[in-house]
């Protein structure tokens, strides 16, 4: 799985399907003025995925030629509970055993389908913006680093994370109904913990699911169109956490972790953030649902009650690549500085209170003395030169990834610079995880430039990401000096944030009303898709076991359950990778109508219906599938139900055959 960099976190089933949500805005009078903002339930955007999407759009014919590198933004919700093995560079591939074409293709194909659906639904309408404060869905997990920012700057803000959700409403002209919303709010997708192995979209996946279901169930009162889409995009997420009760030592002491380095007794491993439902042995799924629910409620409150600001003006966008391995520029104080080849510091390996790392690493170790053992490990990859060490100072270089190119590049040195504009709305598309204060500085710089250059008046500036390439973190210089996890994962040295801001401002004139060209494309980053290692083996075959058949129930439901109970059944299963059942389902709940017919009421899109697969015997190829329905979430009606399993089995020769299984019926009282 992708997010916690934990190779032992291997997916074992599905709590929630993942989606790409596409939002297109265009000038009705000029076909070339369009943009596509994509929100994927993935850990981030990525160069491999973006390349696949852009190639796919080209292959879709002339009608789609309007969509390209300048106006397509690929953002991820930053879920840490999705599949891995689809990223372009080696470093994030290592813990997910390389690059898996099936996983990659599912993301690319689904994203293209979402764009096609958005394109085919194009209609005249309006875009409007509203905001609301969501007080209880995020806190700062690196407060000690945040406090290193100047007091005067911190005093300008009431909170140490951004708590304002900015929401766009898309309203079609034909009947005044809303076709969707898109919002930005920063909170890490780490509600689901690193010890759980079910695929899900984490808290933003929950938020989107809940709002779409809520609107669908009440479409007429919501004044919403059929097929309403809710995009919950990530923002300046870097130092935020959904574990809003704080970080505590799980060593029996009950103490809070040490502020400066998030340790307990000098070690990182026992320090864990606590979500709102801390204490349940559930992998964090109740807390995840709650943080998602709070975001959905916030979005709904804006949707229902907020006074919206109409968006008006030109549609513009640009994209270019800039090489940050040695990007030289002038700071506002006149000094000339430069960035460095990408590198990870020691504290990267310490992890965070959302997911502590291993070994003896801790956060906050600027200028740490050399550790001979880890120096040997680091040098085996690419020993950092004296210049690189000086450039990255005070970060002690653990992994010199920007200069590691064997067998192919480990991390990006060439970064995406992209900004989108719809009227007075300006979207900074950030490839990295900007911290709270980094996001504020970046947005403010763009805001001031947009105003001073008369590109738009009263601009609304938002930041979305991580997007396009994944370039890890973007901390302020002051936070970089502290070298907690976010500073240690800021790849290009202490001037990384200012380099992003400088590059962004350089190209902002391309957003002006009278801009008629695009910036030069910049250097091309490496495309590692065809050279990436894959250690993930394919499905060899499935066996049902002697005297058994696929889909047969091996552990059936009880005849009766009280509402609120958890219902489950186990079947003779087969490997789900034989068929991902995209746009379909592995599991469903069917309800019996009064005339005796059955209708599907839940499927594996639904949070409360969990599909789990377990290989029982690798030699015989046998496996179990357990489908579990937690009826406490949505209060289903009393009635007669059954569980259905949809699978696909692979024979020794490679033939894949569909099958189904069904539990006995049961009553919910």
């Amino acid at each position, binding site marked *: 799985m992708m997010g916690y960099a934990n190779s032992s976190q291997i997916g074992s089933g599905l709590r929630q399907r993942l989606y790409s949500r596409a939002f297109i805005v*265009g*000038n*009705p009078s000029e076909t070339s003025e369009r943009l596509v903002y994509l929100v994927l339930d993935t850990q981030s955007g990525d160069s491999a995925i973006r390349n696949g999407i852009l190639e796919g759009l080209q292959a879709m014919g002339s009608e789609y030629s309007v969509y390209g590198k300048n106006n397509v933004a690929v953002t991820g919700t930053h879920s840490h509970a999705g599949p891995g093995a689809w990223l372009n560079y080696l470093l994030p591939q290592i813990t997910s055993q390389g690059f898996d074409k099936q996983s990659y293709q599912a993301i690319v194909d689904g994203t293209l389908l979402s764009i096609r659906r958005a394109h085919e639904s194009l209609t005249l309408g309006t875009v409007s913006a509203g905001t609301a404060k969501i007080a209880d869905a995020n806190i700062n997990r690196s407060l000690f680093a945040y406090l290193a920012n100047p007091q005067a700057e911190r005093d300008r803000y009431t909170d140490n994370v951004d708590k304002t959700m900015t929401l766009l409403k898309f309203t079609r002209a034909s009947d005044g109904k809303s076709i969707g919303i898109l919002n930005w709010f920063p909170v890490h997708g780490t509600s689901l913990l690193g010890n759980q192995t079910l695929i899900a979209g984490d808290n933003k996946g929950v938020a989107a699911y809940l709002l779409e279901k809520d609107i669908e169930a009440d479409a007429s009162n919501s004044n919403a169109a059929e097929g309403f889409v809710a995009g919950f995009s990530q923002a300046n997420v870097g130092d935020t956490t959904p574990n809003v009760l704080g970080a505590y030592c799980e060593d029996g002491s009950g103490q809070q972790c040490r502020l400066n380095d998030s340790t307990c007794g000098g070690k990182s491993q026992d320090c864990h953030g606590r979500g709102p439902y801390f204490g349940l042995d559930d992998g964090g799924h109740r807390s995840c649902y709650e943080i998602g629910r709070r975001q959905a409620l916030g979005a709904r409150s804006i949707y229902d009650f907020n006074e919206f600001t109409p968006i008006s003006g030109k549609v513009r966008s640009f994209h270019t690549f800039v090489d940050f391995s040695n990007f030289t520029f002038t700071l506002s104080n006149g000094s000339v500085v430069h960035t460095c080849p990408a590198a990870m510091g020691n504290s990267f390996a310490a992890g965070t209170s959302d997911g502590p790392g291993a070994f003896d690493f801790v956060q906050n170790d600027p200028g740490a003395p050399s550790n001979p053992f880890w120096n040997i490990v680091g040098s085996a990859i690419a020993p950092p030169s004296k210049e690189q060490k000086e450039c990255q100072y005070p970060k002690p270089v653990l992994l010199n990834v920007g200069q590691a190119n064997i067998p192919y590049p480990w991390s990006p040195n060439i970064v995406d610079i992209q900004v989108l504009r719809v009227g007075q709305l300006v979207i900074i598309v950030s490839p990295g995880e900007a911290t709270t204060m980094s996001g504020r500085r970046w947005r403010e710089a763009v805001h001031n430039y947009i105003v001073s250059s008369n590109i738009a008046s009263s601009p609304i500036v938002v930041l979305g990401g991580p997007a396009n390439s994944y370039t890890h973190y973007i901390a302020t210089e002051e936070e970089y000096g502290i070298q907690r996890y976010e500073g240690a994962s800021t790849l290009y040295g202490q001037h990384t944030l200012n380099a992003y801001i400088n590059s962004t401002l350089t190209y902002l004139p391309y957003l002006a009303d009278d801009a008629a060209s695009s910036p030069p494309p910049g250097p091309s980053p490496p495309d590692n898709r065809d050279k990436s290692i894959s250690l993930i083996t394919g499905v060899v075959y499935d066996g049902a076991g002697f005297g058994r058949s696929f889909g047969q129930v091996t552990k059936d439901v009880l005849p009766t359950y009280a509402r609120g109970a958890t219902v489950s059944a186990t079947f003779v299963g087969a490997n789900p990778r034989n068929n991902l059942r995209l746009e379909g389902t592995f599991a469903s709940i069917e309800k019996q109508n009064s005339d005796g017919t059955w209708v599907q009421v839940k499927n594996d899109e639904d949070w409360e219906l969990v599909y789990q697969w377990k290989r029982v015997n690798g030699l015989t190829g046998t496996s179990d599938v357990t489908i579990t329905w937690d009826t406490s979430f949505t209060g289903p009606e009393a009635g007669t139900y059954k569980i259905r399993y949809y699978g696909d089995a692979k024979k020794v020769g490679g033939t894949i055959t569909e099958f189904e299984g069904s539990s006995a019926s049961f009553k919910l009282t």
Partner: protein
Amino acid sequence: MARSHIAVALGAALVASLIIAQLVINLGFPAVDFWHGRLDNSYNGAQQDRFNSEKQDGGLADDPSSYLIGVGKADITG
């Protein structure tokens, strides 16, 4: 009696002819270029034609706060 049968039959034939004529017009059996027109129309052309006509009419398309908007969602579970 016979005369009324003939009248009913002629009336039915007339209605049937009109229906068939309407079907032919709607389904577009005749010219190849007519087929192409329909195919384009059924895909993206219908939308574009509508926007173009609104643009020519000085309607919503000329309003700076009027946009083409579209949303889509698809499964990416890999």
